C-alpha cells in the first residue's frame, strides 16, 4: 500500500521536475534565444529557411496564419489518405498488406492530422511499414507542432500591443520540429529500444510454440484436445478430429516501432504502432520503458504552462494555470486508483479469487498487464485521458464503471487538463477568458486578462471554443445512437454498451484517440462520422484561438490597478476549475447517467 502511494507520488514529481526546465528551453527556442544546443540546431533551422526562401521575420495576420494551417493540414490529409489507399502497390510492405479501404483511410487521415490518433484498425494487421513511417510518423510530428504553433500565436496576441501580426507559421513549425521534437524523440527512442521496443525493417518473425494449439475447421480453439505432433492428429475425448488444424507457430510483429512510439507519446498523439498500443509487450516491454513513455506523455503539455508564464512575463500566471490543471489531474487519478485497486465484485467470485496486494498487484487486473499492475495502469489512464494523448497501456473497456467514467469525463471537459500539446493550453486559456468574464460580471468591472480588455468579440469566440467539444460529442453520439447498425459494433451489452459508444465520440470530440476498444469502429458510418467530429473539434478551436489572438494583438495594454481582478491567486485557480467542471457537468451529466453511472448503480443493486 505504502509502496503504491510512493509510486503515484513519484510519477507526478518526476513529471513536474522535468517539465519546468523543458518549459524554459521551449521559451528560449521559440523566441530565437541562445540555448545549449543552438550551435547544432540553429544552422539546421536556417538551412530549411534557405531551401524554401522563408523570411525569418515574416509576420502573418491571424487570417493568413489560419489559412496556412488549413492548407498545410490539407496537404498532409490528402497525402496520408492516398498513401493508405495505395500502400498495396508501394514498396516498404514486407508483410504484403493490401490497400486500406476509403472510409478507414479517411478516418485515419482525419485522425492523425487532427492529433487525435483514433485507430479503427490494428497496425500490425493493416498498415505497411511505409505508411507507418512516411505517413503516420510524419503526422505525429507535424500535428503536434501545429498545436504548439497556435499556442504561440495566442501568446503573441497577449504580448503584442497595437500590432496586426502573430508571427510566421513556417518559422514556428520549423523551430518546434527541428529544435524541440526531433532531438527529444531521438533520445527517447534510443532509451526505448534499449528497453526492448522493436525497431526493425525486417518482415514479421514466426516462432515455434512450446505447446501447439488445435483449431477446428470452424476456427474454434479445441481446448481439451490431445495433439499428436508426429502423426499430425488431433483427438478430443479419444476421437480423432480429422479436419482440425494444428497451430505450431506464433506471429511476432516487427517494424519501425520505437521511433513512432516516442513521438506518439511526446506529441500527445497516442496512435499505437500495434493494435493494443502500449499494452503490447513489444511496444512497452518493461516498467522502465513504461516510466519513460508515461512521463513523456504529459511532459510537453505540462512544460508549456511554464513556457507560457515566461513568455507573457508573468510566471505566476503560468503557475496558476498549471495548478488548476494539476489539481484536476490529481483528483482524477485518485478516483481511478481507488476504484481499480478495489476491483469489481464480479472478479472476487465469492472470495475464490485473491484480489489482495500480497506478492501481486491485485485489484481489477482484467485488461491490465502484470508488469504494470494497478498503479502504473491507473496513472497512465489518468495521464492519457487528461492529455488528449489516447495511448493506453491497459484496456479502458475493462475498467470499473467509475474508473471508466473518469476517463470519459476528462475528455469531455474539453481536453484542458493539460490536454494536447499546445491545444490543451489554448483551450484552457479560452476557459480563463470565460472565467474573468464571469468574475467581472460578479464584481461589476470590465473583464481583462493579462492587461488586455476582454470584449464581446473575444467572448463569442471563447464560448464557441469551450462549447465545440460538448457539441461535437453530444451531437455525434446522439446521432449514432439512432442508427440501428451501430448496435452491432458493441462488445458489451446494456449500460456498458452505451458507454462504449459515448466513449468513442468523447474520444473523437476531445481529439484524444483512446477507446473502449471492444467497440468495432471500422464501419462506413462510424469511420465517416467520427472523422468529421475529429476535424470539427480540432479546427474550430484553432480558428477561435487565432481570431482571439488577432484581436488581442491589436489592443492597447491597460495598466493594472487596485481594482483589477487578480488572475494568479488561489481564488482564480478555484474559479477556473469551477467553470471547467460546471460546463462539463451541465453538458454531460445526462449522458453519463445512462452509461457508467447506470452501470455502477446496477452493480450495487
Amino acid at each position, binding site marked *: 500500500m505504502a509502496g503504491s502511494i510512493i509510486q503515484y507520488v513519484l510519477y507526478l514529481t518526476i513529471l513536474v521536475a522535468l517539465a519546468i526546465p523543458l518549459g524554459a528551453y521551449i521559451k528560449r527556442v521559440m523566441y530565437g534565444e541562445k540555448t545549449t544546443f543552438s550551435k547544432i540546431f540553429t544552422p539546421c533551422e536556417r538551412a530549411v529557411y534557405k531551401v524554401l526562401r522563408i523570411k525569418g521575420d515574416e509576420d502573418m495576420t491571424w487570417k493568413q496564419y489560419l489559412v496556412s494551417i488549413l492548407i498545410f493540414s490539407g496537404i498532409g490529409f490528402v497525402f496520408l489518405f492516398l498513401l493508405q489507399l495505395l500502400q498495396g502497390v508501394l514498396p516498404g510492405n514486407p508483410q504484403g498488406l493490401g490497400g486500406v479501404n476509403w472510409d478507414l483511410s479517411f478516418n485515419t487521415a482525419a485522425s492523425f492530422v487532427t492529433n487525435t490518433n483514433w485507430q479503427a484498425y490494428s497496425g500490425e494487421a493493416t498498415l505497411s511499414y511505409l505508411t507507418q513511417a512516411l505517413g503516420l510518423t510524419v503526422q505525429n510530428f507535424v500535428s503536434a507542432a501545429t498545436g504548439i504553433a497556435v499556442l504561440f500565436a495566442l501568446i503573441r496576441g497577449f504580448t503584442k500591443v497595437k500590432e496586426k501580426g502573430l508571427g510566421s507559421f513556417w518559422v514556428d513549425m520549423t523551430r518546434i520540429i527541428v529544435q524541440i521534437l526531433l532531438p527529444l524523440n531521438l533520445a527517447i527512442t534510443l532509451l526505448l529500444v534499449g528497453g526492448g521496443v522493436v*525497431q*526493425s525493417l525486417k518482415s514479421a518473425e514466426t*516462432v515455434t510454440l512450446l505447446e501447439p494449439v488445435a483449431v477446428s475447421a470452424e476456427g474454434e480453439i479445441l481446448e481439451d484436445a490431445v495433439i499428436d505432433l508426429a502423426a499430425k492428429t488431433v483427438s478430443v475425448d479419444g476421437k480423432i478430429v480429422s479436419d482440425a488444424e494444428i497451430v505450431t507457430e506464433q506471429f*511476432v510483429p516487427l517494424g519501425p516501432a520505437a521511433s513512432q512510439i516516442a513521438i506518439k507519446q511526446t506529441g500527445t498523439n497516442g496512435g499505437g504502432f500495434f493494435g493494443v498500443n502500449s499494452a503490447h509487450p513489444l511496444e512497452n516491454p518493461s516498467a522502465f520503458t513504461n516510466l519513460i513513455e508515461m512521463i513523456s506523455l504529459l511532459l510537453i503539455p505540462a512544460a508549456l504552462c511554464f513556457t507560457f508564464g515566461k513568455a507573457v512575463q508573468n510566471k505566476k500566471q503560468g503557475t496558476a494555470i498549471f495548478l488548476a490543471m494539476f489539481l484536476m489531474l490529481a483528483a482524477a487519478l485518485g478516483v481511478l486508483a481507488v476504484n481499480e485497486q478495489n476491483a469489481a465484485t464480479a*472478479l472476487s467470485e465469492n472470495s475464490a479469487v485473491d484480489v489482495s496486494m500480497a506478492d501481486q498487484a491485485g485489484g481489477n487486473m482484467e485488461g491490465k498487464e*502484470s508488469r504494470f499492475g494497478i498503479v502504473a495502469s491507473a496513472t497512465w489512464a489518468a495521464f492519457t485521458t487528461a492529455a488528449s494523448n489516447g495511448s493506453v497501456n491497459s484496456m479502458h473497456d475493462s475498467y470499473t464503471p467509475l474508473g471508466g467514467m473518469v476517463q470519459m469525463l476528462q475528455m469531455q471537459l474539453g481536453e484542458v487538463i493539460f490536454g494536447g500539446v499546445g491545444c490543451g493550453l489554448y483551450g484552457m486559456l479560452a476557459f480563463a477568458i470565460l472565467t474573468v468574464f464571469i468574475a467581472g460580471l460578479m464584481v461589476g468591472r470590465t473583464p481583462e486578462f493579462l492587461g488586455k480588455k476582454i470584449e464581446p468579440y473575444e467572448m463569442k469566440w471563447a464560448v464557441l471554443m469551450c462549447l465545440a467539444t460538448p457539441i461535437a460529442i453530444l451531437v455525434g453520439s446522439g446521432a449514432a445512437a439512432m442508427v440501428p447498425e451501430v448496435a452491432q459494433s458493441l462488445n458489451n451489452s446494456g449500460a456498458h454498451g452505451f458507454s462504449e459508444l459515448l466513449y468513442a465520440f468523447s474520444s473523437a470530440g476531445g481529439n484524444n484517440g483512446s477507446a473502449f476498444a471492444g467497440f468495432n469502429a471500422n464501419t462506413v458510418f462510424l469511420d465517416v462520422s467520427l472523422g468529421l467530429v475529429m476535424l470539427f473539434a480540432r479546427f474550430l478551436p484553432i480558428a477561435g484561438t487565432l481570431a482571439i489572438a488577432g484581436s488581442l494583438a491589436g489592443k492597447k495594454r491597460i495598466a493594472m490597478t487596485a481594482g483589477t481582478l487578480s488572475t494568479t491567486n488561489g481564488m482564480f485557480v478555484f474559479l477556473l476549475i469551477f467553470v471547467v467542471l460546471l460546463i462539463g457537468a451541465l453538458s454531460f451529466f445526462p449522458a453519463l447517467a445512462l452509461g457508467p453511472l447506470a452501470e455502477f448503480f446496477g452493480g450495487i443493486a
Partner: protein
Amino acid sequence: MKTAKEILSRAAGLFLIFTLLCGVAYTGIVTGFAQVLFPNQANGSIIEADGVKYGSELLGQTYTDDAHLWGRIMNLDVTTYQDADGDTLLYSAPSNLSPTSEEYAALIAARVEKIRGANPAMDEKAIPVDLVTCSGSGLDPHISPAAAEYQVARIAAASNKSEAKIREIIAACTTGKFLGIFGEETVNVLETNLMLDGILPA
C-alpha cells in the same frame, strides 16, 4: 499581401521537408542505431536455442500442460495471421469485457473451476487474480510471483522435479520492480517453462 498560391507552394515545400526529416531521416537513423546497438531487442527479443526460435521473451504463449507454468488468460486469435505457406499463426487479443457484466462473472466462475480442478493441492485457497484475468495486450508474457507460487505443487506433481527446484527456476525468471519502486515484480512464463523443460539451462 500573400496569395493563396504562395501559401500553397510554401506549405507543400515544408511538408516535403518534414516528410524527409521525420519520416525518412529520423526513422532511418534510429533504425540504424537500434540494429547496431541493440540487435536482439530491436528484432523482437527472440529466444533461440539449438537453432530453434522458441518464441519471444516478450510475448506470452498458451499452456495447458500440468508440468508447465500457466500464464494469463489468452483470448486466442487464429484467423488474422498466416505464414507464407498459408498455415495459421497464433496471436492474441484483449477481452475488452466489462468486469461488472454477468457474462464476465460466468467466465470467471468457469476459470475458477478449471484452475481449482488442476491444482487440487491448493484446495480452497483463493486464486491469484492474474490467473483468471485476460491481460491488456492478450499477450502478457508475465504473471505475478503469487500466481507462480500457486502452481508450484501442481508442476512438482506432474514433473519429476522437487518443489524447491521449481521455486529456484521461478526465482531465476523473476524480475523485480524497476529501481525497486516502479511497476510490479513479475515472473516470465516462457523462460520458466523453457528451463523446466531443460531447453534453457536452469
